[in-house]
């Protein structure tokens, strides 16, 4: 269940939301659904337009990696906003996952540019890709 909590700090009011979870078939056309949901959560929690654009790109790259390199199984996507950071975490079943595949290298290049942090974890036949975008405090 998603929860929203407003936390007052000295500088800015930081809103905490999540986790918001989606389970999607590995259908490329549903990447847009994940982006729409992410932009809604980000907008709700005060991210600006440029940050929301970065979040949409990050979510799309996570979906690209998991759909194109997963084992054609359900994609679980989770959005979490806390401490001024939006984190997307995607998970799916994998058969074989080459993190050095040229397409994944391109994904990671984009994630490096739009996110403050990201990573790929491979454990027990599952791939977990996460990426975080920081909220400006200006």
């Amino acid at each position, binding site marked *: 269940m998603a929860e929203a909590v407003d936390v007052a700090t000295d500088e800015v009011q930081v809103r905490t939301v999540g986790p918001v979870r989606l389970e999607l078939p590995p259908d490329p*056309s549903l990447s847009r659904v994940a982006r729409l949901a992410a932009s809604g959560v980000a907008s709700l929690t005060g991210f600006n337009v440029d940050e929301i654009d970065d979040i949409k790109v990050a979510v799309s790259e996570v979906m690209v990696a998991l759909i194109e390199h997963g084992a054609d199984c359900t994609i679980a996507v989770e959005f979490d906003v806390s401490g001024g950071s939006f984190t997307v975490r995607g998970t799916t079943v994998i058969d074989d996952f080459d993190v050095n595949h040229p397409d994944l290298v391109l994904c990671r290049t*984009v994630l490096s540019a739009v996110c403050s942090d990201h990573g790929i974890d491979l454990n027990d036949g599952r791939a977990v890709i996460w990426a975080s975008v920081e909220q400006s405090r200006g």
Partner: protein
Amino acid sequence: MTEPNSIDSLSATVSRDGVIVIAGDIDMAGGPILELAIAEREAQLAADGADHEPSPGDVVLDMAGVFFIDSSGLRSLLSATRRAGERGGKVVLRSVGPEVTRLLEITGTLDHFDIESQRG
């Protein structure tokens, strides 16, 4: 012409003057639609010979309606640049928005394209 349906995230139409007019998201779903339109235009170029302007092998994409692109969409564009290069032509991007420009800059692929104009 590549007609959109209700779930497509992108439409790509080859206009009378040979420009591919794109509207929507160039992502995993939109990339293949764009590739079909580019292939249609490439077939026209091959059939028509060398009478086209501005140069015989150029593929011109009107990007005014594109507000989102990811790495999978970029791969579709890069495939077109490779084929255009083999023909001695290039891929010309018209009315490019900041979202597209940023991805090209991030990935170091801006110089693979001829940017004709930017969308404000």
